[in-house]
């Protein structure tokens, strides 16, 4: 099996402070835990290409997508990243199914996601008529469809009911293992982080470091 990976070593700005983050993720889930405003989302935005690091390198599957020295900066749409945004960013003028199939109409994965994410009954509903938890599930589902090389998940399950949450967390664990997709998972919830991975990082003094887990 080809090992996919995400590697980055970046220097980026968060609230006028320089944040240093460096990490290598193989086909596994790595969690970033910590309070709001520490720069978790900024790291994801740097990898996605929504904002550019001040310095550093980012590569996916050993292909460089950003290098400030070599002036490499692959456009967002060519990075093939699945990104579940903290604020969902669903297309409000489309219904649920159109949001889900925006990137790809892959029916097999679509059916699986509809089933696991419990979306059967809301497929043709408008986005504005949905609850927060429903929007979260759609945003996460949308990011998984279309065969992304890596997944960036920014608090994807906040507001989702506990029972469904663990069904989805198991699905993500399987996806990372079986499809060999590196997942960077940002959360406020330590239980969620511990359930998903042993590799939990946090941002301390503007540096991304591994967190010591005390049970």
């Amino acid at each position, binding site marked *: 099996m080809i090992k996919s990976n995400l590697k980055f070593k970046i220097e980026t700005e968060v609230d006028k402070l320089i944040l240093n983050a460096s990490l290598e993720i193989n086909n596994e889930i790595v969690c970033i835990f910590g309070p709001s405003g520490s720069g978790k989302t900024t790291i994801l935005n740097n990898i*996605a290409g*929504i904002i550019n690091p001040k310095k550093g390198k980012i590569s996916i599957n050993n292909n460089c997508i950003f290098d400030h020295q070599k002036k490499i900066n692959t*456009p*967002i*749409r*060519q*990075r*093939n*990243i*699945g*990104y579940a*945004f903290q*604020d969902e*960013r*669903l*297309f*409000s*003028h489309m219904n649920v199914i159109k949001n889900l199939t*925006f*990137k790809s109409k892959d029916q097999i994965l679509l059916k699986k996601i509809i089933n696991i994410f419990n979306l059967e009954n809301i497929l043709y509903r408008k*986005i*504005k008529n949905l609850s927060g938890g429903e929007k979260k599930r759609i945003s996460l589902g*949308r*990011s998984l469809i*279309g065969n992304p090389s890596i997944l960036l998940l920014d608090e994807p399950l906040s507001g989702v009911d506990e029972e469904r949450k663990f069904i989805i967390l198991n699905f993500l664990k399987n996806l990372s293992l079986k499809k060999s997709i590196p997942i960077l998972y940002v959360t406020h919830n330590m239980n969620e982080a511990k359930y998903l991975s042993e590799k939990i990082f946090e941002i301390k003094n503007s540096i991304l470091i591994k967190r010591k887990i005390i049970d």
Partner: protein
Amino acid sequence: MTAFESSAFFLSIKIGMLSTCFILIPGIIIGWILAKKNFFGKILLDSFIHLPLVIPPIGIGYILLIILGKNSYLGNFLYENFNISLSFSWIGAALACSIMSFPLMVRPIRVLMEAQDKKIDDAARSLGASEFRIFLTITLPLAYPGILAGLVLAFARSIGEFGATIAFVGNIPGETQTLPLALWTLIETSNNQNEIIRLGLISIFLSILALLIATSVEKKFLDRLKNDKK
């Protein structure tokens, strides 16, 4: 309505419709550029688009006559090769109206496109969408009310257009004599005050109707956009 009134009324509608058709696509493109793009000279483009609001309309009509009149190079070329004569024709009147109403077409489109959340575009990019696809599937559907409001506003402006039209295409009954030109003719020639008032009221009615539609459409959809953001 008398034959004189109905001829001016329907000609105004015909010219108004063609003039809005002329500027629909350019209006959407310029609105999109002004709302979404940052570039050197943007202020200049913005000012240039708004020129018809400040230049005397008769001046624009005169410029059109110089550029597209039969004695001009371009006007002569169009006439010789395609048998198209814009000056003193109703199509020329529509062209003059479209230039005068262009800023009103662009404005609501631009406002709606600027009001759109730019983060949504990033979400679409992260899903592999090209800029063209984002324009077609995100920007354009969300700006639809602005386009509709722009169309109606531009149409209303065309209905009231006088200066540029009379300078470029003259005042030919049945060909270029729209409601304002017919009204002017009556004021100049008729002694019947009632006739003048009647035509004036018809013009006002048509313009107010178009404006009411434009305002309510824009308000309704701006409200919807705000609700969607919540």
